[in-house]
Each structure stands twice: as C-alpha cells, then as structure tokens.
C-alpha cells in the first residue's frame, strides 16, 4: 500500500509536468461525456420520459454509472493499455520484479485526466439529486455509495478480463468495448429499458443490474425491498472468474513468450 502511494505520487508529478496537456485532456474527457448528456437531454425533451423514467432519473442513473466507470478507468488504466504493455515488452520487465503482476500493472499507470469525466458525473449528481424527488436519508446515501463502488469493481473486473484476453491475442479485442464503453453509454438508462434479453444478459453474464437497476429502484423509491441496496456487494463476486482468467492468461503468456 505504501508502495502504491509512492507510485500515486509519482504519476501525479508526471501529470503535473505536462500541465497544459493534462488540462486539455481533462476538458476533452468532460466534453465527451457532455455529448452523451446533450443527447439524453434532447431526446427526453422530445419524449418527456422513457419506460416511466424522467429526465432527472436518467441523469442520476447516468451520473452513477459514469462515476463508477471513471473511478475504475482512472485506477485500472494499466489494464486498458495492456496490449501496448505486452507488445513493447514492458510486461517482461514486470515479470522480472518480485511483486505481483496485477499490482505492477495497476500501479504502472494512473489516468488522472479521468477527473474530467468525474466532474461531469458530479454535475449530473448535483442535477439528479436536486431535481429528482428521492427522499435522501442515510440508507439512500449508502445505497448511492455502494452503487458507485460496486460499479467500479465490476468495471475493474472487465478491464482485467480485457487485459487477460490480450495474453492470447496480443492486440486488444475491440468487442470488449461493448462491455465497458458500451455499458457506460447505454447504462445511462435503467437497464429494463432495453427489454428482457438484454436485461438477462446484464444480470447473469455480467452483473450490471446488481449495481445499477435493482439498487436504483430502491433509491428512487420504486420498490420497498431494502435488501436491493446490498446487491452491489454481491456483484463484486465477479472478481473470481475475472481473476481466474488472468491466471490462465499468465500461464499462456509464459509458455509462448511474445
């Protein structure tokens, strides 16, 4: 942990060396997600609601998913860039050091520019929280936090899976974007909007609904089932298969080299 902190400070220093670039990238990140917000805004102005969710509901939901995604991306960026790490032999160097590879990949890259997206998420929180008629109390606040954290873990696992696949394909596989970027984009609407098939996929294959749809129902008072707020914790079990895949990938890499 102490070592991680050192890496953290180092990456912060590096980011500050390129202040202008950092600033622009952060603004860029902000704008990219602002686009999506504009899209939602114009669509809901035209249609007023979707499956019974109004603008403030959708904005709040998008804020949650965007925040958890940005947290995961900021800290797990090393996995997102893993294809490059393998092809420039940086990973070999990691294998030569007496620390766990996951730790080294995670600490090797921190993307502070994702603060831009977080800011966007915060703006949406502000809008969603003030405009929606959620009764904010202790439990609802905890639910919100759990949703964000659970979401970060699930997204983190997806990044880990993406990196594990790189062991076999060397280059990153684009279709993993559906599960990460896609979930970020389409997770702005509560997932029952998309119909049964997608909903099942998002529950049983990748546990998105566990941190998005179900706790969101409780958050906005659409259900009284309090235990829904704990479902994001259950979603964290997704770590197990992801880690397993990483192990398999490592073994494969060691037997084929690069």
């Amino acid at each position: 942990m102490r070592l991680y902190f050192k890496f953290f400070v180092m990456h912060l220093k590096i980011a500050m060396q390129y202040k202008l670039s950092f600033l622009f990238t952060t603004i860029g990140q902000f704008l990219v997600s602002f686009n999506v917000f504009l899209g939602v805004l114009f669509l809901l102005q035209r249609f007023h609601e979707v499956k019974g969710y109004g603008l403030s509901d959708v904005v709040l939901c998008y804020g949650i998913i965007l925040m958890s995604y940005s947290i995961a991306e900021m800290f797990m960026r090393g996995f997102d860039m893993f294809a490059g790490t393998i092809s420039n032999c940086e990973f070999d160097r990691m294998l030569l050091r007496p620390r766990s590879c996951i730790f080294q990949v995670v600490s090797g890259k921190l993307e502070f520019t994702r603060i831009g997206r977080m800011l966007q998420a915060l703006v949406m929180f502000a809008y969603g929280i003030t405009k929606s008629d959620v009764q904010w109390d202790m439990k609802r606040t905890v639910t919100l936090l759990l949703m964000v954290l659970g979401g970060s873990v699930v997204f983190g696992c997806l990044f880990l899976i993406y990196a594990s696949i790189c062991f076999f394909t060397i280059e990153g596989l684009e279709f993993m974007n559906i599960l990460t970027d896609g979930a970020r984009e389409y997770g702005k609407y509560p997932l029952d909007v998309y119909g049964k098939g997608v909903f099942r996929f998002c529950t049983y294959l990748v546990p998105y609904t566990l941190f998005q749809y179900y706790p969101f129902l409780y958050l906005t008072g659409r259900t009284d089932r309090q235990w829904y707020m704990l479902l994001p914790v259950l979603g964290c079990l997704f770590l197990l298969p992801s880690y397993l895949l990483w192990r398999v990938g490592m073994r494969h890499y060691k037997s084929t080299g690069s």
Partner: protein
Amino acid sequence: MGKINGIFRYQKYMSFFRMRFLAGLQYRAAAFAGVITQFAWGFMEILVFRAFYEVNPGAFPMTREALSSYIWLQQALLALFMTWFLENDIFHTITDGGIAYELCRPTDLYVMWFFRSMANRLSKAVLRCLPILIVAAFLPAPYGMRLPASPKAGLWFLITGLLGFLVVVAFCMLVYIATFYTYSPVGIRMVAISMVEFLSGSVVPLPFLPEGFRQLIELLPFASMQNVPFRIYSGDISGMEIYTRAGLQLFWYIALVWLGKRLTAAALKRVVIQGG
C-alpha cells in the same frame, strides 16, 4: 504528356494507398471483433429508440424504418465516417520529428497523408461493412436494414457517401495539422472530436434535435458527413433537397482541403526554418 505526368504523380500515392490497405487487411481478428462490436452497438441503439417510440410514436421525426437503416449504415460504415478514427502514426511523425524523414520524400505531404487516411479507413470498412449489413438485412421489419428508398436514392447515396467520406478525411487532416501548432495534440483532438461527434449526428441523428438549433447545425461542415448520405438512403431526404445538400458537401470539401493545404504549407515553412 501532361496527362501522363499526372498519372505518374498519383501513382506513388496509389502505392501508399495499396500498402496501407494491405496492412489494414492483416488484422483479421480485429475485424471480426469489430463486426461484433458494431453489431451490438447498433442493436442497443435500436433498442433505445424502440423504448422512446413506445412512449410517444407521434414525436418521432423520421420513420422507424429510416431510423433503423440510418443506424445500421452508421455501424457498418463506421470506419469511413467517424472522425475519431485517427492514425496515431501521423501524430507520432509530427511530434517525434520523424517529419524530417517525410519531407525528404519527393511527395506532397498533404496528399500523401490524405491517401493514407483514405486507405486506412477503406481497409477497415471493407472487412466490416458486409457482415453487418447482411445480418441487419435479415432482421424483422422495423428494426432491419432496408433496400434504398428508390434507385435514385441508392445512386445519390453512393455519390453523397463519397463526398461525405472526403469531407471526413479533409476534416481529420485539419486535426493532424493542428498538431504542428500546439503542444497538446491530445487535448485539441479530444475537444474537436467530441464536438464533431455531436454535430455530425453520430450521438443522436440530427432530425431528433430541437427545431431552430437543428437548422443551424445542418449548415455546418459536420452535417455534410454521415448525415446526408444515410438520410438520402432511406428517403428521409428526397427531391430537390438532395441537390442542395450535395452541393453543400462539395463546397465544404473544397473549403476544408483549401484550408488544410494552406495550413500545411505554413506549418512546414515553420518546421524548415526552426529546423524541426
């Protein structure tokens, strides 16, 4: 004689084109993954609009069939029309000083990069578009890909599609060239691209935007990219409007190329004077 010279002049650019195109074809696994991604993306997009349609069919500004065709074309031809499909190699060439190497070649930098970008985009699109279009064509009625509204629409789809493609490449050239003038290419790139994303109708098709705002946007070069051909295809734009839109595309293409060439020349002059 002049004509023969002309052919020779472009032959070297064609060989760049060929090289890039072949290099792009190698990534079979990536293409396969791309097809799946695009298909899933289009599928989700259609589901979103289905949900909105169920709320209020009357508020739909275009027919569902036209919208479906729009979405599938967008996904299938993503590599041709998306501005974020930029080549990192070109940025590296500019920032690492590899530009000196490029300048030693007896070629026009602007034209060379233009061809290179076209080849790159085409090779990606060739591998990806057919599978997506074929599968989309077999989807049930309001969700699938239809044939063009009329033979005339089909023909003008091809013409405006080519023009739109050229406008996209010409715009991306400006993004590359901006790298000469800034210390933060990444930032400029992201800001430019996220603006264009929205204004070209790739986040939400332009007809869904509020009146007034929409009319203004449709005059910008960004609306001359995917917006025109995809809507002509499904008959959403028809009649005389086709010609004015195509004319606008042509105008923007010429304007962007002119600007790009001017800026390249100025930037290179600076590079030569400063010694890289």
